[in-house]
């Protein structure tokens, strides 16, 4: 078990290096000059040269790459142009907000998805199945972009139950979490249903029924755990979608997280900050995928290969 974790952890290094390199390449190799983008097409050549020098862009590419990686190892992502502060400090200040939102969104997704998927999977073909799955596909199709404003209209502006924007207590978290979690809930519910339907006829289920368990008990006690593996792996795959959701949701609800910071940085042409945000997002995604793999092996003993 320990060896499995260590090996997975060691496998993280090359992927992280790949992601860091891709982020670097995005800024430096893609046509289009970040300095001209920052200063405008009509900037004086002197200013452009000064800015290039300030950002270290006038040095040879390999040298820039090495110092970028070196800085990365020390936790130094350069200095923000618009905030005049270290990028690392800015991101560290916003990271908890994004994490909080993602955790809340995931919680909402699981809380909706499990009952829905279970009801549908317990009786495939029934009216309850049809209703639950109709609800699920509706949830998948409603874009965050629209669900957010819709929830705001109903629960903040009309009913006045919940705050409109910003970060604070639990009340502030409800609408953004619903916005983020709904689509994922639909996807997970569908997968759980399919997976439950798949284990219904398995031998261990027949054994559970034979020993006198009712259909519901058999499914809850034996079916669910076996049906869970694909659902967990899908949750990891959905981390990317959660990310899209979090960026859009942070903008809609003025949530002070990294997604909003990144979009602000892009709008302000603050490229060290934007690059830092992209990198942190991507690395988080890599780590989430690793955690999914580990969770996978904890749930399903069959995956536990050295």
């Amino acid at each position, binding site marked *: 078990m320990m060896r499995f974790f260590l090996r997975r952890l060691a496998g993280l290094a090359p992927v992280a290096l*790949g992601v860091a390199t891709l982020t670097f390449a995005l800024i430096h190799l893609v046509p*289009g000059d970040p300095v001209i983008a920052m200063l405008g097409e009509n900037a004086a050549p002197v200013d452009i040269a000064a800015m290039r020098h300030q950002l270290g862009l006038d040095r040879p590419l390999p040298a820039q790459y090495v110092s970028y990686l070196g800085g990365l190892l020390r936790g130094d992502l350069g200095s923000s142009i618009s905030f005049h502060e270290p990028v690392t400090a800015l991101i560290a200040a916003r990271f908890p907000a994004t994490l909080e939102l993602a955790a809340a969104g995931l919680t909402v997704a699981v809380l909706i998805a499990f009952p829905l998927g279970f009801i549908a999977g317990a009786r495939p073909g029934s009216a309850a199945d049809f209703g639950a799955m109709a609800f699920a596909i509706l949830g998948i*199709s409603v*874009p965050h972009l629209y669900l957010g404003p819709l929830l705001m*209209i109903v629960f903040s502006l009309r009913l006045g139950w919940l705050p409109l924007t910003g970060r604070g207590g639990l009340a502030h978290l409800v609408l953004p979490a619903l916005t983020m979690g709904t689509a994922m809930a639909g996807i997970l519910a569908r997968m759980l249903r399919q997976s439950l339907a798949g284990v219904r006829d398995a031998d261990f289920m027949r054994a559970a029924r034979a020993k006198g368990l009712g259909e519901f008990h058999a499914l809850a006690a034996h079916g669910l755990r076996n049906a869970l593996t694909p659902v967990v792996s899908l949750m990891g795959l959905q981390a990317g979608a959660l990310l*899209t959701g979090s960026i859009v949701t942070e903008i809609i609800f003025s949530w002070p997280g990294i997604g909003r910071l990144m979009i602000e940085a*892009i*709008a302000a042409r603050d490229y060290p900050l934007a690059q830092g945000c992209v990198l942190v997002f991507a690395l988080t*995604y890599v780590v989430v995928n690793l955690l999914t793999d580990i969770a996978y092996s904890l749930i399903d003993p069959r995956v536990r290969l050295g």
Partner: protein
Amino acid sequence: MRNLSLAAGAAIVSLLLLAAAAGPYLTAADPLAIDLGQVLAAPSRAHPLGCDALGRDLLARTLWGARVSIGIAAAVVGVSLAAGTLIGGVAALAGGRIDELLMRAVDVLLAFPGILLAIALAAILGPGLLDLVIALAAMGWTGYARLVRGEILSLRERDYVQAARGLGASPVRLLLVHLLPGVAAPLAVQASFGAGGIIIAEAALSFLGLGIPPPQPTWGGMLDEGRAFLLVAPHLTTVPGLAIGLSVLGFNFLGDGLAQRFGRRT
């Protein structure tokens, strides 16, 4: 059960294509014409869906927005499909070092969240139709490459392909005549879901100000503009929101239906 998903998906997607193609002929209103007498107007006979904050006709803007969304989705899926098929096919057929190299590249790209890649590229390349297509295709092609490679690796061992190889078919002939038709079904499923994903991503980019710049109407841009008037004119967000939702629903149904039809799990 009859294939309800396929029927519903095909109907919605056809409707969308029709709206995108015939949009300009369905309403006489100019999507860019500003009429300050009609600011935030509610739906009326002259403006069936009402008007936005600049008094522009919402129906016309939504229909023109369909052209942008559907057009971009089609272009991006087309480019991703072509690039993914080419690279996945080459990797599967070449094998060895080339396969290893190409798939490592795909792995790194897949380790990088797609929307982030699209946001970064859109920010660097600047606003523009072609730039947007490139940014979105960059996030899309890897999935197709993996799918094509996997399918070809499994199809390659089938008897009919072995027979064709035994008869002396060239690799190119093998690929075009015997392997790609076998990959077509799973590709169609993935392309359908992919189109829905691209519509959402394009709307998100426009919403974030990284897509097609205003005044050109896009659904994401319209949602963003409408947010300031949530209480006084909720139709400004509802109309483009429903348009995006309906399109995604249509492509999801279509993908589900095709998967059922081809007897595949999604």
